[in-house]
């Protein structure tokens, strides 16, 4: 098996993992947008006028990108979106940590700073997610997904 084929097969579980993760992460934020708006405001990076639009739109982008990764549809575009979102989260985390804020990550359900505090471990975790999304972006060939089915159909038409 070639190196590219191995990377493509490794990208498959990474794709499913990231897809499930982003769907899971979006659910509470969509259900309780007010909580997520407070999380966004707590980072103290965005001006007030942008807090609510981000709190409304971002979870849906997470949901759609996550579902597309799970289904294997437009995988590269979805992985690019996930990588971009993780990169933005990373930047926000580093800024918050540099300011010494003792706060909740806001990555999943809003749990409060005591049970879900940000730390440099959170940064390491997000870096791992960024690496996985780049793996999917560069190596996924659409196995067991809609993209792969389209390719197969095109090849056998």
């Amino acid at each position, binding site marked *: 098996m070639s190196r590219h084929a191995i990377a493509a097969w490794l990208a498959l579980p990474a794709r499913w993992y990231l897809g499930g993760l982003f769907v899971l992460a979006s659910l509470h934020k969509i259900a309780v947008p007010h909580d997520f708006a407070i999380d966004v405001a707590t980072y103290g990076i965005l001006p007030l006028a942008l807090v609510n*639009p981000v709190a409304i739109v971002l979870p849906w982008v997470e949901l*759609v990108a996550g579902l597309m990764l799970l289904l294997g549809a437009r995988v590269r575009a979805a992985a690019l979106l996930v990588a971009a979102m993780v990169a933005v989260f990373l930047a926000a985390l580093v800024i918050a940590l540099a300011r010494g804020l003792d706060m909740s990550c806001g990555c999943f359900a809003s749990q409060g700073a005591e049970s879900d505090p940000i730390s440099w471990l959170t940064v390491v975790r997000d870096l791992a997610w960024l690496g996985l999304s780049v793996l999917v972006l560069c190596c996924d060939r659409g196995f067991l997904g809609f993209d792969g089915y389209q*390719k197969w159909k095109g090849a056998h038409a």
Partner: protein
Amino acid sequence: MSLIEPTPPSAPAASAPAASALVPAGASPAGPAWRRTFAEAAVIAASAGLVALAVNAFRPAGLPLVAPEPYEVLVPCPEPGGPVAPVEPSDSSLRGPRVFLVDARDPGAYRRGHVPGAVNVPYDWLDPLPQAALHELARRIAASGATRVVVYGDGGRPDSGEHLGREISGRGIRNVGYVRGGAPALVPGGAS
């Protein structure tokens, strides 16, 4: 489901699906394929955003597009804190010459009774120890020749002695401990 119109056949990199399957992903000629990926990502994000705004507009729990007033954000202030070791009140080394004792209680409690030789540095729950007071404390510790600093407080929960110990430890004073149980465990009538 096609979000983007397919690239014309003359464009080499975004060619037919069968051809792209033969080229390792990410190793194909970069330009058009990446442009297409970026364009698709933008369309997906814009579509999700429109759905989000539509759902938000019609749901009871929806947010106003612009928050009318700033959110009340409660973030605990970062507290500098260093390591402190608990010391039992019965520890005989507490009375030794190599230990510098600090009483973290308020001056009234200190006047009513304190361990002989203990220096009063009242712990303020709201404000950090002023820099001048910290320097004075460090100077007195150095002058005493002590190798260990032990703080005792009111013995409450939380204990002012433990907190002052953490604070001065985090601000550069080394080898700091606190008396478990605080003044009530050390000083007769210290609970007052």
